[in-house]
């Protein structure tokens, strides 16, 4: 498995960035998960989706909540821009399970790490056919370097 630092960026506004971290903290030590929808790359809606697994090491988006979100995106012609979940005890890097189950190649995968609870951080990846490419996260125009 190789990781390439790509020149591609992923943009988030500060409010959504904060909301995603707040969501991750809300069910600690369990993993949380959610979706980011948008149009032309601009965010239109943040969905908090229940983790049906309610586990510290696994997430599986609640199927009914997932369908409702996807149908709303479809009805509004929004794209699925991002899929996020938290790692409560490990770094913000895709696990082998994350790579194996990355079925949505058109979306980016955001991982929120709470490994250091005082310094939660988000990293963003494209995961396509087993290959991981990290994107640069830009929050309100400010580049976040997390390593």
């Amino acid at each position: 498995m190789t990781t390439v630092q790509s020149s591609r960026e992923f943009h988030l506004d500060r409010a959504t960035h904060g909301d995603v971290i707040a969501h991750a903290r809300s069910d600690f030590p369990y993993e949380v998960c959610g979706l980011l929808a948008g149009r032309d790359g601009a965010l239109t809606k943040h969905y908090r989706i229940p983790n049906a697994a309610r586990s510290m090491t696994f997430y599986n988006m609640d199927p009914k909540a997932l369908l409702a979100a996807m149908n709303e995106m479809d009805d509004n012609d929004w794209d699925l821009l991002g899929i996020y979940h938290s790692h409560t005890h490990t770094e913000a890097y895709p696990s082998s399970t994350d790579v194996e189950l990355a079925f949505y190649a058109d979306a980016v995968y955001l991982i929120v790490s709470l490994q250091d609870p005082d310094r939660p951080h988000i990293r963003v990846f494209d995961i396509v056919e087993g290959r991981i490419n990290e994107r640069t996260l830009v929050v309100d125009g400010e580049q976040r370097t997390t390593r």
Partner: protein
Amino acid sequence: MGIEVRVPTVLRKHTDGERRVSGDGDRLGELINDLGDRHNGLRDALVAHDGSLHRFINVYVNDEDVRFIDGIDTPLSDGDVVSILPAVAGG
């Protein structure tokens, strides 16, 4: 009339980009076989070698998850809407 099937982006490569297709079948498995005859690769994307639905594919009939009905044997009627979504899961 048949059964309408909502196809997610990731599976539209099997349906020439169509987001909705239609098919026939008295049960979900029959519908999938019918679709598979016309949409190459779709059956294998949904059904495992043992004939059950793949673990990480969600299939819904009228928004109900078929895991809580009869899985691949879930009965269908004309006018039903079947939705398919790969699970969003990981570790």
